[in-house]
C-alpha cells in the first residue's frame, strides 16, 4: 500500500516540476506541491527532495538523454553516498517520466529558445484590380494582399500588410523554392 502511494507521489512530483519549469504553469508553488503530495513531510525535508528531483530532471533535460544515457546516469545516482543518493523508486519514477515526457519537454525547451519575432498568423486575399486611369480597362490584374502577424511571446503583435502583383509573387515563389531546396539538402542529412 505504502509503495503504491509513494510511487504516485514521486510521479506526481515530477509531473508538477515539469509543469512549473517547462510547461509554464506558474500557479503551482513549492508550498502547494508539498501540501498536495507530501503533507506529512517537514518543509526542509520537502525542499531537499524537491531540489534534488528538479536538479536531476534538469540534468536529464539539458542533455536530452536517450535510453542508455538515462540508465547509466540513474545507475550512477543510485550508487552515490549520502543525501545525494537516489532511491530505486525515485530512479524508476524518473525513468518512467522521461520516457513519456521527453518529446514534450524538448518541444517546450525549443519554444523557449525562440526569442526573435516569429510569424504568428497569416491571412490573405486576392483582388482583381479594377480599371484605373493609366490602363486599358479590359485588362484586370490580380493583386494578392497578405497580412502577416509578427510578434514575440509576451508582446503585442505587429500586422504587416503586403501587396503582390503577379511578377512580385513569382519572385517570392522563386525565393521560397530556393529555401526549400536548401532545407532538403541540409536537413535530411542532419
Amino acid at each position, binding site marked *: 500500500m505504502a509503495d503504491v502511494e509513494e510511487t504516485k507521489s514521486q510521479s506526481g512530483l515530477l509531473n508538477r516540476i515539469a509543469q512549473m519549469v517547462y510547461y509554464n504553469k506558474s500557479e503551482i508553488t513549492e508550498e502547494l506541491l508539498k501540501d498536495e503530495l507530501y503533507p506529512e513531510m517537514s518543509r526542509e525535508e520537502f525542499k531537499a527532495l524537491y531540489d534534488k528531483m528538479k536538479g536531476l530532471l*534538469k540534468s536529464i*533535460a*539539458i*542533455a*536530452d538523454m536517450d535510453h542508455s544515457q538515462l540508465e547509466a546516469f540513474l545507475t550512477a545516482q543510485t550508487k552515490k553516498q549520502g543525501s545525494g543518493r537516489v532511491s530505486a523508486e525515485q530512479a524508476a519514477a524518473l525513468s518512467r517520466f522521461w520516457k513519456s515526457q521527453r518529446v514534450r519537454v*524538448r518541444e517546450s*525547451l*525549443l519554444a*523557449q*529558445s*525562440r526569442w*526573435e*519575432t*516569429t*510569424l504568428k498568423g*497569416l491571412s*490573405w486575399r*486576392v483582388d*482583381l484590380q479594377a480599371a484605373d486611369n493609366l490602363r486599358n480597362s479590359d485588362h484586370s490584374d*490580380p493583386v*494578392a*494582399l*497578405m*497580412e*502577416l502577424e*509578427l510578434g514575440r511571446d509576451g508582446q*503585442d*503583435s*505587429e*500586422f*504587416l*500588410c*503586403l*501587396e*503582390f502583383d*503577379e511578377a*512580385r*509573387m*513569382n*519572385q*517570392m*515563389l522563386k*525565393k*521560397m523554392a*530556393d*529555401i*526549400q531546396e*536548401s*532545407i532538403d539538402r*541540409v*536537413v535530411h542529412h*542532419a
Partner: protein
Amino acid sequence: MIRFLILTFRTAGKKNLSADELVSKLEEGSNKWCKASIQVLCTLWSEHGASVHAQQKVHSMLSTCQLVDVQWKLAMAVSSDTCRSLNSPYVSLLLKVLEPSGQISQRSFEMTIPQFQNFHKQLKEMAAIMETV
C-alpha cells in the same frame, strides 16, 4: 491613464476581443480596478469594439506595403543554456518594404520548418488563384 486606455483599446481592437475578454485582460493586469470602472469599460467596448476593429482592418489594408526585397537564411539552433543539443533548424526572413509614406523599412522574423512549409503552400495557393482569375 489616457495613454494606457488608448493602448488597451488599440490592442483589443486589433485582436478583436469581446467585452468579456477585454475585462479579463484588464483584471489580469491589475487588481486595482473598481467594479464601476470595469462596468463602464465593458459597456463601452460592447457598443464600440466591433467598429474599432473594423476601422483598424481598413487602416491596415490602406497601409499596404510593397515588398522591395527578401533575404533569407536557413539556420540551426545548436545549443542553449537549457538544452545542450537543440539541433533545431529554422528559416529567417528579412523583408525590405516600401511603406505608403515612401519610406523603406525592414522587418525580420523566424519560422520553424513546418511553419515555413505552410507559408510556402499558402503563397502557392495565392499564385494559383491569381493565375485563374
